[in-house]
């Protein structure tokens, strides 16, 4: 039988760590494998990934007739989308219908099945691609899975994601990954009785931290206040954190972390909503006849008054942009309460824009507006910088695409015991300064008065 976790069945003496960083994303998942002994990182290329970005594996499983979970469409089956959102809606009772199988299942079962398949493919890919480089070693596998939230929620779902990771690894060791097997492993998961093998460690980490970990451990890292704006399809994640190293440990103080429904796709939604409102409004008036004495209008605009004004794309986007601006400013306001006198407010909070939507001008504009206000009102400034692709990534993935795999890359780093994190809940607001003491308190003698 083919060995699912090793180069061969031969016994090897020397161990080689391989850390699998798995970024379970809303629209796509990414995996980076890292060999810490050789400081090399390999983004996994998926045969069924997006055609022009093979390192992005769409987060949508398919099922074949045997009930096997697949990552590619089989016989025009319909994929199951928005897996992650459904999982996070996390209502176990919330049942899903798998049409091919004509059966009902849970997003959890689907997720475990999907992740198991991703893990399996990534392992196989590595063992095949790097056989010549590492075949003298016994691979010691490690799995790190990203968790999408920080703060209180993190602690709540941390354990759950840890269970998912265990279950997915366990399932990945089955040659055929079926829905039935996934259901079985999920059952064990709830009983806390999942058993795993061929793995040295399983961990979970907040995505936001993973995203900057590559940067935090690089030479270009600055010990300063940072803001991370991750623009996904649905959400706009904004977080602010301080990064520094003390006594050989990286310290992250995450001051704020907010998720808003202001992702790239929301721009479309907002425009469509505006059009809908306008059309409805217009329809409600369109039935009325024009004054018959007046000449018949020669232009259609006469029937759709103020269309150019009311449906001006700039105006519509401005409204959206204002929301984004507010979201960022709210983070900054919350940050100011916790950290009132950061030197970066004058020089600019180092800001990384990540995610698929980062090049959309609306978001770019937000930063320049913040700086305009800062110039006139003395509020904190921001300074955009790029998350550079770390040198040890063995791949042709261009510098401009690195931010897409930055979470997976961070997850693939050997981070155990490397840093401390303080989450927003753990950082209280700074006390408001006390008013200056009354001079009379200092000199309580009558002769002063």
């Amino acid at each position, binding site marked *: 039988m083919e060995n699912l976790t090793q180069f061969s069945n031969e016994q090897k003496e020397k*161990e080689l760590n391989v850390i699998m960083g798995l970024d379970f994303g809303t629209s796509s998942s990414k995996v980076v494998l890292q060999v810490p002994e050789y*400081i090399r990182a390999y983004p996994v290329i998926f045969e069924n990934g997006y055609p022009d970005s093979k390192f992005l594996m769409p987060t949508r499983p398919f099922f074949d007739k045997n009930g096997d979970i697949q990552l590619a469409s089989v016989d025009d089956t319909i994929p199951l989308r928005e897996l992650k959102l459904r999982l996070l809606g996390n209502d176990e009772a919330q049942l899903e219908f798998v049409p091919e199988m004509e059966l009902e299942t849970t997003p959890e079962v689907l997720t475990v099945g999907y992740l198991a398949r991703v893990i399996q493919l990534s392992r196989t890919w590595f063992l095949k691609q790097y056989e010549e480089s590492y075949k003298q070693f016994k691979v010691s596998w490690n799995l790190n899975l990203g968790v999408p939230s920080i703060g209180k929620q993190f602690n709540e779902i941390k354990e759950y994601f840890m269970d998912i990771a*265990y279950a997915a690894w366990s399932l990945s060791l089955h040659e055929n990954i079926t829905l039935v097997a996934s259901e079985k492993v999920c059952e064990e998961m709830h009983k806390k009785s999942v058993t795993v093998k061929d793995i040295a*460690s399983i961990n979970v980490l907040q995505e936001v931290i993973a995203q900057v970990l590559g940067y935090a451990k690089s*030479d270009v890292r*600055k010990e300063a206040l940072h803001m991370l704006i991750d623009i996904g399809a649905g959400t706009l994640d904004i977080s602010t954190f301080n990064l520094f190293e003390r006594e*050989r440990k990286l310290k992250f103080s995450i001051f704020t972390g907010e998720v808003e429904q202001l992702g790239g796709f929301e721009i479309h939604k907002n425009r469509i909503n505006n059009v809908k409102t306008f059309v409805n409004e217009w329809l409600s008036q369109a039935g009325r006849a024009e004054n018959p004495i007046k000449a018949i209008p020669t232009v259609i605009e006469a029937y759709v008054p103020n269309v150019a004004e009311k449906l001006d794309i700039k105006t519509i986007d401005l409204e959206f942009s204002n929301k984004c601006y507010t979201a960022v400013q709210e983070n900054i306001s919350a940050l100011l309460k916790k950290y009132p006198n950061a030197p970066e407010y004058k020089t600019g909070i180092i800001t990384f824009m990540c995610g698929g939507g980062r090049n959309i001008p609306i978001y770019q504009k937000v930063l320049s507006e913040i700086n305009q206000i800062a110039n006139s009102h003395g509020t904190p400034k921001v300074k955009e910088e790029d998350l*550079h692709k770390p040198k040890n990534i063995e791949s042709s993935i261009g510098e401009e695409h690195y931010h897409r795999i930055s979470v997976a890359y961070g997850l693939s780093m*050997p981070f155990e015991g490397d840093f401390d994190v303080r989450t927003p809940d753990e950082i209280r607001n700074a006390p408001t300064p006390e008013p200056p003491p009354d001079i009379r308190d200092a000199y309580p003698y009558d002769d002063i008065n």
Partner: protein
Amino acid sequence: MLSIGQTVRLVANPSRIGTCTGTTITREDPVTKEKRLLWQIHFFDTNQYQYFTENQLEVVTGVKEHPLDLIKKGKIGQSRDLRKLLTHVRLNGRLADLLYSMDVSNTDYYAYQFKPVIRMLNSVSNGLLIADEVGLGKTIEAGLIWTELKNRYELRRLFVLCPAFLREKWKRELKSRFNIDAVIVDAREAKTYLEHAKHNHLSSFAIIASMQGLRPTKGWDDESSNNKRPTTLLGKLLLDRQNEESLIDMLVIDEAHYLRLGDIKKTDKKTSKLGRLLRGVSDYIVLLSATPIHLRSDDLYQLLNIVDETTFNQPNVFDEILKANEPLIKAREAVLSSKMNRTEFNELITNALSNELLSDNQQLRNFLLKPPSENDLKSFEKRSEIASRLDQINLLSNVITRTRRRDVVELKVVRDPKLHLIDLNSLEKQFYDKVTEIVRDFCLNNYQYEGFILTTPQRQMSSSIPAALYEWKKKAVKLSEQLYEDYGFQGDAEKVGPIIRELISKIEELGDYDELYNNDSKYKCLIRVIKGILNDKKNEKLVLFSYFKGTLNYLKRRLETENIKAVLLTGDQKKDKEELLTDFRETENHNILLSSEIGSEGIDLQFCRILINYDLPWNPMKIEQRIGRIDRLGQQADKIDIVNLLYNGTIDARIYMKLHDRLKIFNRALGGLEPIIGEEIQKLTVELFTSKLTPQQEDERIEQTAQALENIRNDEERLEKEAAHLIAYGDYILNQVKAIKEMNRWITGKDIQIYVVDYLRKNFPGTELQQIQEDKLEYFIKLTNEAKNELDDFIKINRIALNTRLISNSQMPIKCRFENKLISESTDRAEVINQIHPIVRFVSKMIEKESFPFFPVMSIILKKDRANLEIKNGRYLFAIQKWSIKGLQDIEKLFYVAINIDDEKNLSDKDSEMLVTSAAVLGEDWLEASNIIDFDRIYDLANDRCLSIADTNYDDFVLSLELQNEDRANLQLKTLKLHLENQIETLQEIKQKHIAFDRKSLVKATEGKMQALESRFERKTLEIGNRKSITSEKEEIAIGLINLI
């Protein structure tokens, strides 16, 4: 069980070494649910802390492991280590086949300019005469030698002696090209610097002094005199220090022909004495002079006598040297043309050894003991090597270097002269005749003075009549520079006073300024020429030369009235020269640069292709120097135009026709007549002005000079040809330079970055090293306090003269750029970290103390298209041996050997080096090697083949250096003895004098001096004797595999 502070490495990748911090974490094994202990390791290469289980780590014992042993165990490290290792050896400053001066100064690269550097490194006497023709950058060559020696031997004290008018030029060039802040000093200051050096051998300076300012005056060495002049005190200090520890590390004497003794002038004798005194307190000496090299020349003898007093110890030595060299030259020629067998070779060597001058030459003897085999005499590489060894023995090869313009490929430009003969109008003719008459009368009556000086006013008038009149009226004529510009000589300008006064007294008779201004025929001609040129090309840049500043000022004023913008460059401007030049070059409507020769000295005018000589110096050499300003390296045009303006029917016109034209100076570079020409012209000038000659007689007299110069030139050509043949001019040195360039045998900024950053991370954790941009070698660096203290101590103990902000107490990180340049190419305020930066020297010293700084085995994959190699693809095994030789000079060499693993054929030395050094810089780790290479076989191949090839070459190298060292030591001992004898003789004479005058105390003092001298001699003899035999060692510093794909 691991413990805190232990050095460990990864079992899976043994090149990753770090220390165990003692911190541990436990991790639950997901399979067994047991707790596993992980140890935190601080890795040196990445500065990161990572956790591993104990079975993934192994303790490094600190015992240095031989690369062969590591190969046997299959332990392979990273390519980065190879790069660091090579940088480390290179930075050590001792490598024989690397140039530390290459690519670091602010100069363009021309191979020939490194010829003197290599000559100096090979020089037995530590001295060199650079006799390049003008315009080839002798100053740069001297600067490169200094840079090279400073890096190799940590030299600290540079002394430049030159004519007074060249001091500023030296100061400027040293600063702008080599970032050396040199100070111009007088005799008193020079003495202070040298006194300081006497008490403190670590003191540093770069000083420039003029020959005139330092020359001792008459009777300076008279013991009984109480003369307290600074020059006297300096002279006495120098005399006192002869043969002692040197006060100057490198002495440069520019225009060294002033040192010759053959001349009648007393000043030259004094200059010569000064030169010799300075030589006696200097380790290295570089003489710069465009002196032609032919071996009948007494001047050449005088100069070489200063460079190497022992070999060149009597005027007729050349004949003997020629005789001694003859068989060597024959052998070299024959070896190079491959027409010789072993017996013939041995015969020639025996013959050479029979000459007294070479009889005890060890290198030559060795040729007899270990003669080349028949095969050697057939192999191209071996033959070149033998030829180069023969050149090394050649008694003239390493004391002189000369490059001629015709040999420099970059200098092939056609010169196109255009003459404008201007007829004087009646006003001008009257003025001209009158002034000529006054000057002539004056010269006739004052012949006892230096006649040519008195001609100054006449020369000014020849330049521009209105300008001369204007300046005389102002009574503000500065003459010394003009004399240099016109005649190439300096004279006592004071003596011109009376003649100017005479002219001023008769000024009313000479003419009216306004009238002459309005009827200036030469100016009118100039304007026609300029407008013609600018009509053709609006933005053309012209250079106009005049030897008379009055003319330049006059033209500036006048051209501006015509809306022609001119930039004036006479050396008097307050504005920085470079600024003026940039202004001229970059401002669109600035068309004309009005320059004197001194004004344009040291700056580059190659961007102009038209030169206007508004007047013509009589001395053809001075004209050549003007042309040389644009006909020099970097001239882009194929042809340059030279426009000459002359008054018709005057002496100047005759000089032009009969002398300049005949010598074809406007058509081709003059070649090597320099110093002789000056004298001939001086004679001619005096005669033309001190005797009443008819125009025809004048013509005859001028022709006589032309003929004389032509004869000299022909002789020179012939003799130089002969010398070129006899002196080792072989191209092999140029090939050596080119090889160094091609084979990347120098240190880059990136090399230094990896070297320093890795070290600081490893040894001073906590040091902030923040790279500003991924692709740039710029960092914000803040050292830890510990690192600051150690670096500070290092700087203080070693008295490093260079400053660094890295040790400042500021809490702000310092912006630094790793760039191996003496002068940064950027203008920002970042501190440049180059090969001589204190931190680099500090790191190098610290690494030297470590027993196992780099992992010596590596496997590298190299893509051929990145490396531009002409080596066939394949898998290679390589080894690098470091050879260290200690003798009179400490030398190291890296020997590379590479073998193709599949066919087991070895690459040539050159290809081996190319392959390995390219892999170090451009290669990546070849991880697959461990799985596809049979390490037992590699071990055998490395041991039996690579290292045995290296060992054989090592033996030859050591032997040749041993012999060279012995020859060098013998020469030094001879020189020392000669000095002692001379000085004892002088002291004997002094003593006799004192006895004669019954000055008992002085007799005793002199005897004391003699004793001290002898004991110094003994000490020094012993010291040289100790280093006469060398010690040598070899070390395998790396063995590895390269996969060339």
